[in-house]
């Protein structure tokens, strides 16, 4: 046992006491969550673009152009101010990633008749970059009897244009208000607007009964409900990946440098593997502890501690330990079977694919955590750890039998994988020559 602990201590130090470890501790979350953060950040600090838009048909729709321009100018001045003072953006809407609006709309009233020649000429101006878009307001938009109207918006990126969405939103409001004014008095309009006041369906949790008291349900935070499960799933992926990946490199080094022979002259292969796995699990728990402590400190500073799912901690650690043992054993077996990292990559491709499976379908799982996909993936051992933690972090109550059965299944398959990987490890470590073929690996796994 003392030798196993000696090996475990070395493996732990080799994993944790390196610059590469510190760098990866910092880099992994950046790589994983950086995309979302970057979108929001770029949205905030990016250059504000001026969009020159000519609007035709204003003469036949009195008041509409003036109202649009007033809104645009008011928002433009807010956006300009926001370049130096972010609080000025308080009244502006943001996109789904929290990014600030990036466009200033310079509206001009188009004069004269808009025939095909004129349309072609304006289109050329857009192509040259002198103009961003032109809009053709149909005549008599403000009539009480008007039905669905289509307002042509000409631009090179018209389908995706933010300006088109902005225009549609404000045009609708201005036109609808004007139509109401034609038919109803101000008092009536006010009553209509009150009657049409929007309704919000607020998401609440469940009412709880504890110790004879009933605790009312709390309003749910969408960000917490979506990003917390995703964050926990990514954390699970990271702690498994950061522990299992170095195993491949260590075993490859031991094999190519003939360190394995020295080690096997001192301990038997099972002791060697046990020490390595123990060290890897300890390293993985360290990674988790660092991220957990970091998250807790940030949450405490921002007053979010109540959102931290501390009740999931024991489950997370259990699924983490089995996940690390499962993948570290596979990586060790692969490392022992090859002589170069390049050769390992081809063998590991299917492992990677399976390992990343929950990341591809996480949104489907949190939308229906009790559905067949989520349940099925929970019982597929390579994806059990990440899927189960994702499901547990949603508000749905996962049946206890599923929780225990998936953990048991993962534990049993981990033991099987460790045994099989151990056989491959034992033979592969002393194997010199070509990369073994699949049937050879099968023989090693079967007979040892």
């Amino acid at each position, binding site marked *: 046992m*003392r*030798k196993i602990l000696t090996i475990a201590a070395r493996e732990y130090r080799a994993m944790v006491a390196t610059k590469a470890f510190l760098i990866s501790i910092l880099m992994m979350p950046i790589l994983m969550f950086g995309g979302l953060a970057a979108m929001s950040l770029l949205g905030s600090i990016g250059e504000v673009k001026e969009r020159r838009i000519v609007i035709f048909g204003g003469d036949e729709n009195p008041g509409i152009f003036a109202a649009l321009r007033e809104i645009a100018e008011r928002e433009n001045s807010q956006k300009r101010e926001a370049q130096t003072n972010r609080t000025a953006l308080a009244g502006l809407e943001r996109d789904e990633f929290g990014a600030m609006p990036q466009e200033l709309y310079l509206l001009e009233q188009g004069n004269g008749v808009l025939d095909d020649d004129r349309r072609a000429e304006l289109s050329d101006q857009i192509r040259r970059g002198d103009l961003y878009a032109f809009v053709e307001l149909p005549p008599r938009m403000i009539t009480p009897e008007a039905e669905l109207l289509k307002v042509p918006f000409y631009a090179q990126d018209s389908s995706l244009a933010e300006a088109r969405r902005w225009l549609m939103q404000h045009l609708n409001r201005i036109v609808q208000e004007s139509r109401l004014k034609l038919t109803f008095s101000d008092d009536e309009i006010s009553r209509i607007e009150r009657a049409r006041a929007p309704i919000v369906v607020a998401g609440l949790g469940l009412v709880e009964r504890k110790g004879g008291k009933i605790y009312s349900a709390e309003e749910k935070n969408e960000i917490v409900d979506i990003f917390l499960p995703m964050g926990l799933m990514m954390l699970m992926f990271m702690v498994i990946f950061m522990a299992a990946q170095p195993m491949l490199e260590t075993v490859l080094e031991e094999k190519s440098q*003939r360190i394995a*022979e*020295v*080690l*096997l*002259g001192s301990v038997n292969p099972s002791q060697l593997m046990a020490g390595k796995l123990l060290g890897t699990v300890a390293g993985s728990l360290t990674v988790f502890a660092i991220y957990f402590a970091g998250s807790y400190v940030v949450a405490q500073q921002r007053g979010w501690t109540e959102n931290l799912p501390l009740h999931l901690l024991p489950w997370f650690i259990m699924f983490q330990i089995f996940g690390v043992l499962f993948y570290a054993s596979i990586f060790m077996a692969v490392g022992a079977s090859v002589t170069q990292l390049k050769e390992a990559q081809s063998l590991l491709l299917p492992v990677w694919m399976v390992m990343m499976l929950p990341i591809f379908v996480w949104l489907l799982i949190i939308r229906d955590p009790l559905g067949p996909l989520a349940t099925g993936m929970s019982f597929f051992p390579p994806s059990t750890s990440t899927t189960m933690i994702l499901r547990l972090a949603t508000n749905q109550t996962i049946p206890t039998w599923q929780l225990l059965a998936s953990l048991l299944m993962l534990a049993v398959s981990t033991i099987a994988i460790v045994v099989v990987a151990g056989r491959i490890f034992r033979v592969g470590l002393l194997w010199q020559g070509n990369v073994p073929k699949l049937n050879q690996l099968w023989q090693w796994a079967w007979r040892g």
Partner: protein
Amino acid sequence: MPNAIELKGVTKRFGKQIAVDHLDLEVPEGTIYGFIGPNGSGKTTTIRMILRILQPDEGRVLVLGQAAGKVADDRLGYLPEERGLYKRMKVRDILKYYARLKGCYQCQPEIDYWLERLGATEWSKKRIDALSKGMAQKIQFIAAVVARPQLVILDEPFSGLDPVNMESLKAAVLTLRERGTTIVFSTHDMAMAEQMCDTIFMIFRGKKVLDGTLESIQAQYPADRARATWIGNGTPPRLSGVTDVEISGRVIEFRMLTPHDPNDYLRQLMQTHTVEGFHVIRPSLHDIFLRIARPDMYPIASDDNQERCP
């Protein structure tokens, strides 16, 4: 003297290939035992069986009086050729690690002793990848002996060393023997084996082909090489019944195809030259190795196979 290693009818197969074939070997305790053989002859497999990394398919392996089991033996030290060290570990850490794996947890004095003895103290805090090849070789040697093993297997321990370091490592090996350690010394350097080993063992195609002291081995092979020097006439002599002729100035070295009658060659020389000296040379280990490993290069001597040289 009891044996440190005893192999009785040991056979090891890998699939259909027989790596070691009914091998018998006895290594007396406290000796330096030279282990030679061409690449792929079964040397490494035999060493691995002694180290208990591999189990024999047939036969019995006794190491330090114990039959080979599946448990590694802490009384054995091993130095693999050129490698065997983690590149990113510090010297002192790796020495401590290897010592602990051999069950030696209080080995700091031994580490300090060997570091100083081999002039590596100032490198003790460096990483292995910062060391020269020769220094890494010395560290590897220390790693093999730091737990005070009773039996040490050294695979090419002098590879990559300059003459100064080679001498200090040779002295270290001799110190080990003085302490009573048995040393199995695997090498391709025949001169080194001749110089250092009490007994030499050669394996070829999985079988034992040589085993004994250098003298006893040499006695098995005819002294078929001769060296002669002459004075006066600078023209090299022409001899019949010789092969592998080497001439340098007034010295000629040749292999006699009929070694049982060296006088015949002396007579031939005396007919044309004034002979100053004539010596029959005993075959070196290098020659014997080549005769076994490359019989095509050394045809069997016979009177029908004569040629005239040069």
